[in-house]
């Protein structure tokens, strides 16, 4: 009887350990996905590329103007706004909150893009 109780306790402990390991692995995988990174958006030929960019929260996105004409990067919701970006100039913004951030070029409003922070 005593022996079976000990075995049961051991099995429960083992189960808990395995569950903990799995949960830990899951957390590790989740934290690896959420690791902030840097991402690039190229402005060229009157368009943002990629048009929609998905990044982990905390990531910094850098826009580089590779076009011959000046552009701006302006958040539709007023979250960020660059100065005029002439050829080869850059603008960076760090997305510290999750959400969808549509933006456009205020000189050429038909140029639009979106950053999704998740």
């Amino acid at each position, binding site marked *: 009887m005593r022996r079976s109780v000990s075995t049961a306790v051991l099995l429960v402990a083992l189960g808990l350990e395995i569950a903990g390991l799995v949960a830990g692995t899951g957390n590790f995988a989740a934290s690896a996905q959420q690791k902030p990174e840097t991402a690039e958006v190229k402005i060229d030929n*009157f*368009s943002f590329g990629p048009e929609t960019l998905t990044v982990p929260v905390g990531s910094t996105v850098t826009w580089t103007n590779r*076009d011959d*004409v*000046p552009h701006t990067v302006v958040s539709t919701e007023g979250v960020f706004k660059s100065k*005029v970006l002439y050829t080869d100039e850059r603008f960076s913004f760090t997305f510290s909150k999750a959400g969808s951030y549509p933006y*456009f070029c205020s*000189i050429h409003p038909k140029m639009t893009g979106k950053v999704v922070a998740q």
Partner: protein
Amino acid sequence: MSVNPFDIRTVILAKHAQHVVLIHFPIALFIAAVAFDYLGHWTRSRTLAAAAHFNLLLAAASTVPVVATGLAAWQWALEGQKLKGILLMHLVLGCISSALIWLVFLIHLRVRRHPEVPLPKYRLPFEALAVLIVGFTGHLGGFLSGVNGPG
């Protein structure tokens, strides 16, 4: 987000879209006026001279909202940032073009108020130069807006 150019909100909120639309009026009216003036000069037609005068009047008048919306775009869309390069060149040439259109109009207006005075011949090369500068400014604007550029 797609932008509909015929949506009234887009027209108002884009802030500089009016400039892009209105700019075509003084350019077209001025070029037409100069063409009428040249034809009127060669054919000695009073009708063509009058057509040139009224086209110039409308061209000069239409530069006012064009300059106003251009400056408003600079202040609103670009928050009055210090300009350089192609934007600065477009601003300076735009102001020069407007001034030239007004100068040509005033030359014609002066003669119209004093019919005994003939139109000065120097106006013809002056008008040709003005058309070139207006055309170049418009080309820069088209390049900036993506109409004449690679886009």
